[in-house]
């Protein structure tokens, strides 16, 4: 493709530049804009026809004028990839941000990424122990899963994400995770928090960071996660790494998407977000998983803050329909001083059943988890009733369940930021201990054989 520079800009609107052009330009092609002061901006073709081309400018259109030169580079956006990405900090457009040299590319990878053939996928079924009881017992994570953290402003989602990044391991395996961290529009303060923590624990050497901060161009956020995932795919499927991708904050990403949609005068869907947001998000989230014949894997932890704590807002809602479950952070628990404030009731891991049980975690895991849920859910519901009628009106079963809800929050959910509980003694045995506060006859979700084997008060065959 020619290196011709066009000076045919007709309109500039928000992040978009419209120009008349003379030669065919391909869809999604990358574009370079040379401003009159000599500075360079980058963009991508969003719409192309014989008469007009629409370009989205990643760095924003400040200072663009009709004299600005536009050059079409004849290729779609690509990221230079190599193992050298590990240990590096890049900006939101993939340029070094750590003062280091340019990445020496082993390959150039298209950042849009192709869909994995569903037939070529391998079922995720290796349990990842995070050391956090609420997650390990109730929303167990498996390798290759995408499990977002649904949080809200002012809640400790970053601590939880970091604790997971630090502690995540496969039981009985030494394979470490490589962390790919992708920041979209977070504050410098949050960014520093992440970097310091990764530095403190030595994880930074095993991480690749793609960083777009709150004062970086908003439109750039649309490519930052794609860069991160492209790097993750390369490391996982070309170099057999197990990659843990943490990206934060998806809400900022969606805002940028809306901004582009509005500038193009598209028909908006719910709350002004574009109608194709589901597909767009899927193009990110679906880049998790395992494929046949490759050793590596991609596990995703997107973090999103729910506007107004509203789980039905389009961002968490559409995410929840794509991801394999969600971990919901609760303001109520946080205000009670419980860390991690994970509300297990709306939380869910869809791949849990594939990852737990005999040979993976423990034979009683599923039963215990169901029983914890059921007892806690009923106990919590009773709190509402007690507020109206008082504890006196409760029968024995209800009283026990009510008490259990408190114990569960205090003993099971609560743990310290560096407490790494093992799944069997740390988490499941603890669960049995707490469940023994309820009469066995009310524990209807537990198979008798597990009660005989694990219940501290009913254990058979192991008494002295």
């Amino acid at each position: 493709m020619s290196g011709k520079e066009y000076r045919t800009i007709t309109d500039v609107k928000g992040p978009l530049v419209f120009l008349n052009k003379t030669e065919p330009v391909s869809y999604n092609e990358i574009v370079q804009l040379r401003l009159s002061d000599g500075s360079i901006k980058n963009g991508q073709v969003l719409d192309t026809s014989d008469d007009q081309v629409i370009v989205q400018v990643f760095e924003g259109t400040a200072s663009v004028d009709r004299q600005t030169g536009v050059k079409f580079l004849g290729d779609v956006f690509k990221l230079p990839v190599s193992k050298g990405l590990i240990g590096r900090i890049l900006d939101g457009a993939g340029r070094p941000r750590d003062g280091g040299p340019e990445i020496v590319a082993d390959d150039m990878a298209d950042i849009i990424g192709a869909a994995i053939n569903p037939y070529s996928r391998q079922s995720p079924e290796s349990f990842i122990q995070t050391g956090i009881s609420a997650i390990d017992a109730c929303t167990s994570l498996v390798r290759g899963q995408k499990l977002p953290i649904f949080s809200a402003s002012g809640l400790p989602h970053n601590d939880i994400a970091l604790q997971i990044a630090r502690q995540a391991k496969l039981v009985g395996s030494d394979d470490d995770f490589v962390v790919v961290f992708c920041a979209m529009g977070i504050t410098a303060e949050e960014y520093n928090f992440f970097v310091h923590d990764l530095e403190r624990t030595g994880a930074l050497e095993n991480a690749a960071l793609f960083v777009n901060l709150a004062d970086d161009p908003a439109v750039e956020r649309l490519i930052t996660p794609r860069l991160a995932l492209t790097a993750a795919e390369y490391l996982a499927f070309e170099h057999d790494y197990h990659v843990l991708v943490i990206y934060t904050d998806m809400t900022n990403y969606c805002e940028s998407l809306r901004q582009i949609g509005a500038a193009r005068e598209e028909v908006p869907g719910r709350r002004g977000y574009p109608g194709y947001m589901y597909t767009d998000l899927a193009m990110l989230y679906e880049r998790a998983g395992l494929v046949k014949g490759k050793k590596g894997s991609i596990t995703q932890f997107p973090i999103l803050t729910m506007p107004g704590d509203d789980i039905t807002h389009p961002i968490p809602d559409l995410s929840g329909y794509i991801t394999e479950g969600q971990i919901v952070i609760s303001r109520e628990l946080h205000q009670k001083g419980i860390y991690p404030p994970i509300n297990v009731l709306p939380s869910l891991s869809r791949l849990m059943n594939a990852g737990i049980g005999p040979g993976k975690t423990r034979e009683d895991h599923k039963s215990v988890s169901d029983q914890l849920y059921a007892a806690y859910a009923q106990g919590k519901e009773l709190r509402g009733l007690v507020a109206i009628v008082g504890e006196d009106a409760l029968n024995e079963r209800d009283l026990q369940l009510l008490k259990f809800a408190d114990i569960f929050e205090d003993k099971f959910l609560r743990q310290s930021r560096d407490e790494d509980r093992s799944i069997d003694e740390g988490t499941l045995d603890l669960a049995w201990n707490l469940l023994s506060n309820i009469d066995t006859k009310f524990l209807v979700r537990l198979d008798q054989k597990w009660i005989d084997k694990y219940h501290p008060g009913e254990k058979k065959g192991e008494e002295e």
Partner: protein
Amino acid sequence: MSTENGVIYRISGPVVTATGIAPRMYEVVRVGNEGLMGEVIELHGEQSVIQVYEETSGIEPGEPVIRTGQTLSVQLGPGLLTQIYDGIQRPLPKLEETMGVFITRGVDADGLDLTKEWEFVPTVKVGDELSAGHVIGTVQETETIEHRVMVPPGKEGVVKTIESGSFNITQTVCKLEDGSEIAMMQEWPVRHPRPFVQKYAPDVPLMTGQRILDFLFPLAKGGTAGIPGPFGSGKTVTQQQLAKWSDAQIVVYIGCGERGNEMTEVLDEFPHLIDPNTNKPLMNRTVMIANTSNMPVAAREASVYTGVTIAEYFRDMGYNVALMADSTSRWAEAMREISSRLEEMPGEEGYPAYLSSRLAEFYERAGRVETLSGEDGSVSVIGAVSPPGGDISEPVSQGTLRIVKVFWGLDAGLARQRHFPAINWLSSYSLYPQALDQWYRDNIATDFPEVRTEISTLLQIEAELQEIVQLVGSDALPIDQQLTLEVARMIREFFLQQNAFHDVDTYSDLKLQYDMAKAILNFQEEGKKAIAGGAQLEDVVNVPARTDLMRGRFEEGYDGRIEGLVAEMSKQIAASMEEN
């Protein structure tokens, strides 16, 4: 055939505009230097608007567009079963062979293996008069399914020659006097329903082994059902349970805009699961279509039609087919996305104004019919709906509920309590029981409808009592009402809850369902008697035999033992009265 060449004028995502050709609506065209498959969806003066079934990055204005003269069609014949396709019937294993684990573009693949030979056994002889839909021979397609080769719609005449033996699906196996030839494969345009003689009223239940569905909210063979529910409420698990256990002979499962890992799970699991009706792997009767959320959106739009056309084809052979579409909301969103690229005037929430008519057309392709050959075949359609925020007042849910006869309403609250399947027994409904009751009386038990009514009445009463309990606590209720609450709890925990991941509990046949329901009513009756005789509620509820009865459902051979367990429970309850 008209093969004109045009050029691309404009590209905007999956929508491409071409000039220089004058195609028909819904004609398939080849777009760009790579010959990507597309379908004409709008004609606009000189311009033809095309939805492209593959990724359009890197395509330029000026590249060629070529007409094919065909409309979007599927290949039908032996080889469909056990296959997994994308939305436009390209076999995914084939795509993996040619392009590796990532789906790139510009690769064509036939829906059926054109070279594989099948053993064709003729069922007609020279001189027979045939009309469209007439079965001319059979092929043992899988261990359990006999594929019936039919005269394609539009052909008829007298048999001149008929072959027997091994043939591939494009070879002629039958010649008619008028010179026309019939092979085992036929093609059919996906957007047109296949013909039949007439539709029957659905009066046979589709058995699913799921207690709440079969017993309280049954679906008839040839019926339609909608499953709306927020994320995490168990739509996909319910759909998969239906695909696994329903007593249809053929299952078509469309994963439309859903998760890749979920399709993988189905693919991994089905070959190992045994069909309780035939004792052979479930895969033998299954066709799968997987167009995951990140695969091209136009192919997602087409996937639903591809699936229903395949379902109709098996129906025409005289089979009962169950079609699952998970999720129709993603299909509707694909329509919305394309509609917005066309800059059409939007209807509600940005969906195109024709949304509800498209939904209706789709569900209308269900039904129990008299096929062209006089057989009885059916397509039952079960569509999952994913309403944003779980609020079913949105257009896709509402459009669906206006058409379907069965509503299985999933409930986030139940899901949070891990009550699965999380189908709300108060809001769900089925309009089929009246039509099916005679079947139940004849085949299961004469009092089946009455038992069902009693169970659902108890649940209704419980809901009313719960409102009082919320205010005053359960101890304030009279003892007989407290017993009713216990009975209702038993219905919920013992009967309605069913563990899809438990080897035994995952499937209950209708007879066992009936026995379990009777066991609950028996508990109620004995309980009432005992309490009237002075027993304490606590003692009645806590008899060990009741716990055994309830836990027993997780054990093999429960259907043989349930009678004994119920008798033991009655005895113990009666004894609790004597203690006092």
